[in-house]
C-alpha cells in the first residue's frame, strides 16, 4: 500500500512535466553575445529561405496532386525535358546559396578571431566533470553536477534546474573578451552554453580555442554535447556572468580558499576526520565509476569493496590513485585532487564497506610522494 505522501509524489512526478514546467520552446535562443545574435540571425535567415522554397515546391506539388488526379478524369500529357526550366532550377538555387554563404563566412571569421583576449580560461573535460583554470590567476577548480541522485531516480521531486546545476559554476566578468582553451583528460567532450553560442570539442592531447564576450549579467546553463561514456547526460556547464568588481572579489575569495586548503595539508589529521572527508571526496570523484557502495560495474569498473589491492597492498593502492592506470579509464588523480582529499579517499576506501583494514595515510605522506620524482 502506498502512503498518502508517496501518492502525492508519484502523482506529482507524472503530472508536472505537463503542467508546472510546461515550456513549449520551439526555437533557438538569440543569446547574450554579439556572436550568438548573428548566429541566430543566420539561423532565421536560412529557415525562412527554406520555408519560402517549401511553399513554392510543395505548393506546385499539392496543386498537381489535386488538379491532375486520375479520379477527377485527368489525362496525362506526355511532355518531358525543358532545357530552360532545368537551367533555371539549377542556377536560382546557386544564387540563393551564394547570398547565404556571404554572411555565414563573415560570422565564422569573427568566431575564429581569438586575438586580444583579456582573460584566459583553460577548460578540461574529465569523465564526467569540468575543470576550470584561470591562467595566470592561480585559481583552478572542478565543477560537478549537483542534482541529487534521489531526483534522478525519481525518489524526490525534481528541482527547477534539474541536471543543469553544478556545485561551482564558471564565474566570468561581463564586457570582457574571454578566451577559452579546451582540452580533455580522457575521452572527447564538448563544452556548450547555448546562450553564449559557444560550443567546442575538448580533445585529449590537443588544445582548441574559442572566445566569448558576455553582455548581460546572469546565469547561463548548458551541457556536454559529445558522447563521453556512461554519465554523458550528467555533465552540465553553468556560467555565472558578474560585474568586473564582483569578479575580482570572487577571485580573491577563491585564492584564499586555496591557501586555506594548503594549510590544511600541513596539520595533523585524525583517522576519523580523514574518513569523513574521504567519504565526501569519494562520492564526488570516484562513485560515478566504482559506485557509492564500492561494488563497481562488472567487467568495466573494478569493485573496491573486498578488492585485494585496497585491502592488502597500500603502496600499489596509492600509486593507482595518484598516477592512474594507463590503458584504462582510471585517471591520475594527483592532477585532480589535493593531498588532503587523496589521503582522505585512500583512508576511506581502506576502511569502508567492510574493508576494515584500520590503516590510514596522512596528507603529509601523500604530499611527500607527490614531491618526489617518479
Amino acid at each position, binding site marked *: 500500500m502506498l502512503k498518502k505522501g508517496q501518492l502525492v509524489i508519484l502523482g506529482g512526478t507524472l503530472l508536472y512535466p505537463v503542467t508546472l514546467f510546461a515550456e513549449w520552446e520551439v526555437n533557438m535562443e538569440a543569446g547574450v553575445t554579439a556572436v550568438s545574435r548573428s548566429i541566430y540571425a543566420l539561423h532565421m535567415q536560412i529557415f525562412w529561405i527554406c520555408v519560402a522554397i517549401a511553399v513554392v515546391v510543395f505548393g506546385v506539388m499539392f496543386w498537381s496532386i489535386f488538379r*491532375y488526379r486520375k479520379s477527377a478524369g485527368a489525362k496525362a*500529357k506526355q511532355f518531358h525535358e525543358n532545357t530552360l526550366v532545368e537551367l533555371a532550377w539549377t542556377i536560382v538555387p546557386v544564387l540563393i546559396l551564394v547570398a547565404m554563404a556571404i554572411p555565414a563566412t563573415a*560570422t565564422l*571569421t569573427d568566431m575564429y578571431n581569438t586575438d586580444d583576449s583579456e582573460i584566459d580560461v583553460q577548460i578540461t573535460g574529465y569523465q564526467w566533470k569540468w575543470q576550470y583554470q584561470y591562467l595566470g590567476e592561480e585559481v583552478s577548480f572542478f565543477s560537478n553536477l549537483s542534482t541529487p541522485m534521489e531526483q534522478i531516480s525519481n525518489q524526490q521531486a525534481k528541482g527547477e534546474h534539474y541536471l543543469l546545476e553544478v556545485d561551482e559554476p564558471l564565474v566570468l566578468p561581463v564586457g570582457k573578451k574571454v578566451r577559452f582553451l579546451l582540452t580533455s583528460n580522457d575521452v572527447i567532450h564538448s563544452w*556548450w552554453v547555448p546562450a553564449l553560442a559557444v560550443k567546442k570539442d575538448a580533445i585529449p592531447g590537443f588544445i*582548441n580555442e574559442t572566445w566569448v564576450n558576455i553582455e548581460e549579467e546572469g546565469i547561463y546553463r548548458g551541457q556536454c*554535447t559529445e558522447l563521453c561514456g556512461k554519465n554523458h*547526460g550528467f555533465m552540465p556547464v553553468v556560467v555565472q556572468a558578474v560585474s568586473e568588481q564582483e569578479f575580482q572579489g570572487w577571485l580573491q575569495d577563491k585564492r584564499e580558499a586555496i591557501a586555506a586548503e594548503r594549510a590544511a595539508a600541513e596539520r595533523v589529521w585524525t583517522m576519523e576526520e580523514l574518513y569523513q572527508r574521504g567519504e565526501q571526496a569519494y562520492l564526488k570523484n570516484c562513485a560515478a565509476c566504482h559506485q557509492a557502495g564500492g561494488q563497481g560495474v562488472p567487467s568495466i569498473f573494478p569493485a573496491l569493496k573486498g578488492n585485494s589491492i585496497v585491502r592488502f597492498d597500500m603502496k600499489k593502492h596509492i600509486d593507482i590513485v595518484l598516477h592512474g592506470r594507463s590503458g584504462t579509464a582510471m585517471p591520475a588523480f594527483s592532477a585532480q585532487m589535493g593531498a588532503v582529499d587523496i589521503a582522505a579517499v585512500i583512508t576511506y576506501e581502506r576502511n569502508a564497506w567492510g574493508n576494515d583494514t584500520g590503516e590510514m595515510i596522512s596528507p603529509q605522506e601523500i604530499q611527500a610522494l607527490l614531491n618526489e620524482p617518479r
Partner: protein
Amino acid sequence: MTAAVSAHHAPVRGIRRWLYTTNHKDIGTMYLVFSLAMFFIGGSMALVIRSELFEPGLQMVEPEFFNQMTTMHGLIMVFGAVMPAFVGLANWMIPLMIGAPDMALPRLNNFSFWVLPFAFTMMLSTLLMDGGGPNFGWTFYAPLSTTYAPPSVTYFIFSIHMAGISSILGAINIIVTIMNMRAPGMTYMKMPLFVWTWLITAFLLVAVMPVLAGTVTMMLTDIHFGTSFFSAGGGGDPLLFQHLFWFFGHPEVYIMILPAFGIISQIVPTFSRKPLFGYASMVYATASIALLSFTVWAHHMFLVGLPLAAELFFMYATMLISVPTGVKVFNWVATMFKGSISFETPMLFSIAFIVLFTIGGFSGLMLAIAPADFQYHDTYFVVAHFHYVLVPGAIFSIFAAVYYWLPKWTGHMYSELLGKCHFWCSFIGVNLTFFPMHFVGLAGMPRRVPDYSLQFADFNMISSIGAALFGLSQLIFLVTVVRCVLVGRAAPDSPWEGAQGLEWTVASPAPYHTFSKPPLVE
C-alpha cells in the same frame, strides 16, 4: 527429357535451397527477410530508448545500457536493415530490369548474403557479454571506442569487417552485372533509374567500405597491439579517427539514399502515367551527388577545431550538394505536373518520401551553415534531420518498392486497404516522433542522453508516443506482406496501369529463371 530439364531448373526443396542457392531471386528474398528481421530488432531498441525518454528521470534502464541501445540501434539499422534491404531489391530487380538471366557472379552472391547473419549474430551477442555491448555510439569515436571501450569491442570490430566484406562483394557483383549483362539494345542511357542509382551506389561502396575496414583495423591494433593511431599520448590523433570515419561515413549516407532516389524515380512516373521529366538530368544529378559526397565529410566535424579555411571549404561544398538534390525533387514534382495521378500505396509512400525527405534536406542545408552548426551540432536537431532523411526517406522508399514489386515477386496483390492503413499510421507516427525533435534540439537538448532537464519534457513525451505508434504500425506491414504471400488474389503480369520496363514483361510471380534468352530493347 523435358521433365528432366525442368526438374533440373526447379529449386531444391527445404533448407538446402536457401543455403546453396545461387539464384538472384532467392538471394534477394533472403536479403529482404533478413533486413526485415533486423528492422524489427533495431526498432525494438529504438522503443527502449523512447520509453526511457518518455519522462525526465531514470525509469527503465541504466545509462550504461541506454548507451548500448543507442549504439546498437544505429548500427543495426544502418548496416543490418537499410543497406541489406537495398541490396535485396537490387538482387531481385536489377537482372529483371536489364534483361539479364541472373547476377554475374552467383556464388559470390550467395556468399555475400550468408556472411551477414553471422556478422549480426556476432554483433548482437556482444549485448550478453561481460561489460555489455558497444556503448560508444554508432560513430564509435576514439578514444571512447578504444581505450575506454568494453571488452566486447573486438567482436564489434570483426562483425563490422564481415558486414563490410558482404557489402563490397555485393557491390562488385552489381557493378559487373550492370556493365556486362544488359540486354542487347539497352545502352547506359536507357537503363531504368533504379539501375543507374544502384550502379553509382555500388561504386561508392567499393570506394569507402575499405576505408571503414582500415579504420576498425587501426582500432584493433590500438587496443591489442600497442599502436597509437588514435591516441595523442603515443603520437597519434583522435581526430584522425573522425576524418577516416566520416570519409567513409558521408558517402555512406548517400549509399543509403541514392537507391531510394532510384525507386521514387520508378514509381512516380508509373502512378502519374507520364514519363520522368528529366531522365538525363536525374542521372547527372545522381553522379554529381556521388562525387560531391567525397568532398564534404568534415561538415560532421565543424566543432573539432578545424582551421578557418577548412571550415569554409566544407561549408561551401556541403551547401553545393543541395543543388543536385533540389534538381531531383523538382524533377519528381514536374513529373506529377499535368499527369494523371492515382494513389495506390507505393505512390502514397513516394509522395510522403518527397515531402519528408525534402524537409530533411532543408534541415541539412541549415546544418551546412557552419556558424549555425555551432548551435545545432550534437543536439536533437541533428537527430531530427537524419531521421527525416533515413526513416521517411530511405525506409519509406523501401516500403514503396516492396508494395510496388510485391505482385511481381509473389504473383499476388497485397490488400490496398491494409497497405493504406500501414501508410497513414506510419506517416502520422513518423512525424509525431521526429518533428518535435527539431524543437527540443533548437531549445538545447543534446543527443545521446538518457535523461534531460524539465523544459524538454512535453515534446519528448510526444516523440515517445509517436515512436510507439510508428513501431506498432510496422506489424500492419508484416501482416500485409504475409497475407499477400498466402492469400492475396492473383496479380496480372503488369498490375500497374502506367508501369514501364522489362520487369513487367515476365509472368507474375516471376518464374525461377527469367530472360534465359535476352529480350531485345528498342
